[in-house]
């Protein structure tokens, strides 16, 4: 196992800036998730770490040693591809042992390793089959096995679950997390699925347009998004984000939005007046009938998601989404008083958190 350091990685494809000065530090044994919308450069970054495509500038360090001049086979890494990329002309056991055979591992060791990984993944019965005789979930396991069997310094996983159906994906996600605990490997995991990122990652790197927007543990990314992109990209239902003016009333800062005003309280007392954006997570909004609640919203639509209900309402001229218990009596057309804990309001200036 090893630590990974990326220093100022830059990559251009023609005129397109695929990656611009990406710095990431991954500790030994850490599960690091690269999260971003498609086209943000996360897969390119993974290919650069693997040595499959060269970066234009910057350095990749494994355990503090630069691997820039090493071919992919000499970097001691393993990769799981979104498409699995199993060798179609080889049986499962040949697929698993291919990397070891290429490295001249003695045959008894190869046999042991294949047995070990097949047991770990529960694919002992499939060893003699060809990839085309496997289901999607089984192929995914074989692809994982092919990476695990070599016990490399670093695992790279490129959206390994995106071709599985939703239920299977949730199961495999859990297994993956357990497996990470078990083998303590350093893993770089690329996904565009925020749920995967939040549940799996020790550390999440949010990327867009070839730039790193925020790095941190999932809780920090969720609770303290460093800009409006991260705030909107993470969280479901999406954060309520409003553009407006910060003004002072009676010495206290207020947010003046389109058709409503929000008291930001004493915690935000230092804020300067001017243009800002505020973000409020749907679950940070409380409802009630009390007079002290100064915001009134009109319910327009309700979506039921099982564990709770999402209320889509109108606040002034803006849309507002908030969560309500599943047994709520709210109906479309109702007017509710809503309140927000000022401490939970995210305030951004020109897109950046303040």
């Amino acid at each position, binding site marked *: 196992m090893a630590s990974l350091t990326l220093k100022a990685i830059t990559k251009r494809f023609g005129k397109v800036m695929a990656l611009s000065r990406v710095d990431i530090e991954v500790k030994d044994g850490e599960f690091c998730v690269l999260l971003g919308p498609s086209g943000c450069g996360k897969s390119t970054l993974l290919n650069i770490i693997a040595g499959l495509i060269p970066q234009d500038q910057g350095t990749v360090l494994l355990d503090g040693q630069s691997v820039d001049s090493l071919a992919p086979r000499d970097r001691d890494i393993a990769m799981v591809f979104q498409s699995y990329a199993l060798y179609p002309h080889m049986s499962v056991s040949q697929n698993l042992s291919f990397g070891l055979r290429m490295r001249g591992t003695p045959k008894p060791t190869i046999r042991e390793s294949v047995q070990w990984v097949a047991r770990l993944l529960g694919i002992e019965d499939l060893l003699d089959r060809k990839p085309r005789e496997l289901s999607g979930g089984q*192929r995914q396991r074989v692809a994982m096995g092919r990476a695990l069997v070599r016990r490399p310094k670093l695992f790279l996983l490129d959206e390994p679950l995106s071709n599985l159906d939703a239920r299977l994906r949730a199961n495999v996600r859990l297994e993956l997390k357990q497996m990470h605990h078990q083998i303590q490997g350093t893993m770089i995991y690329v996904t565009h699925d925020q749920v995967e990122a939040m549940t799996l990652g020790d550390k999440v790197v949010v990327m867009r347009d070839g730039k790193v927007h925020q790095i941190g543990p999932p809780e920090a990314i969720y609770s303290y998004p460093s800009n409006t992109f991260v705030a909107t990209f993470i969280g479901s239902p999406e954060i309520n984000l409003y553009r407006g003016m910060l003004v002072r009333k009676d010495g206290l800062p207020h947010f003046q939005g389109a058709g409503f005003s929000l008291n930001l309280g004493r915690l935000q007392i230092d804020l300067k007046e001017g243009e800002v954006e505020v973000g409020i997570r749907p679950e940070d909004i409380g409802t009630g009938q009390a007079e002290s609640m100064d915001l009134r919203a009109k319910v327009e639509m309700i979506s039921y998601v099982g564990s709770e209900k999402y209320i889509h309402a109108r606040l002034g001229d803006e849309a507002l989404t908030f969560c309500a218990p599943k047994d709520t009596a709210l109906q479309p057309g109702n007017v509710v008083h809503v309140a927000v804990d000022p401490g939970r309001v995210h305030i951004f200036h020109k897109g950046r958190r303040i």
Partner: protein
Amino acid sequence: MSREHLETNIIRILRILGIIFFIIIVAFPFYWMIVSSFKSLEELLMRPANLWLDIRKINFNAYYEVLFEHGFSRYIANSTYVSIITVALSVTLATVGGYAVTRLRFRGQAFMSYSILIIYMFPAIVLVIPLYVVFSHMALRDSIHVLILVYLAQTLPVALYMLRSYFQTLPVEIEYAGLIDGCSRMGVIWRIIIPLSAPALASVALYTFMIAWNEFLFAFMFLDTPEKFTLSRGVVQLAGSVHLSKQLVMAASVMVTVPILVLFLFFERYLVRGLTSGAMKG
């Protein structure tokens, strides 16, 4: 009978008639060739319009004569040699070349990739005279190795083009997996690309073999010494020299045609089978 029913029936009948028509056009000359090759000379002279072959009178003399008295055993060996060497070279070069223009990034890659077929803008008949002159001056003309060179030049563009198109359909992730698992580029080609490309390689080999085996124009122009003749050249020699013995020419023609036919039937299985299924998500 409903109108739709009528239409389907008419279409069905037309289709059958069409198939019969083409079978007659294609198969009849072939049938005539085989039947004639088994007849004796008298039989052919006495009843030239007889379409049928009397099983009891099947006569292998024509084959014997052609093979051992008219030098065709030698021509078969020559043609086999030329064809096999051409196939081996063409498939090898097309594999590495096709891979290079598909996957590797180098200066002029796009140009290389698209200019492969330019050579096909020159018909053979335009090239044969200059090549005749050049090879004559170099004293290389009367040689089957020069023939191999020419056939290679003739088949390589299409071979490259076919393999390039096939390689482009192979998912690059499989190669990435191979590179990470410990292969060099050549290792990837040898252990992953070639096994997966078996159907394409079979088609290329078959195509090249057919060209080299059947080619006549260059063989006719370049070869003077009978010991160096290829089959097609030998057939023409025979047809030109033995005026009456039609059964000999037919027997020689059978020897030219049948190997290709057998090869095609044998390889046909490989041509259709796609090997990549199962590599990617299903």
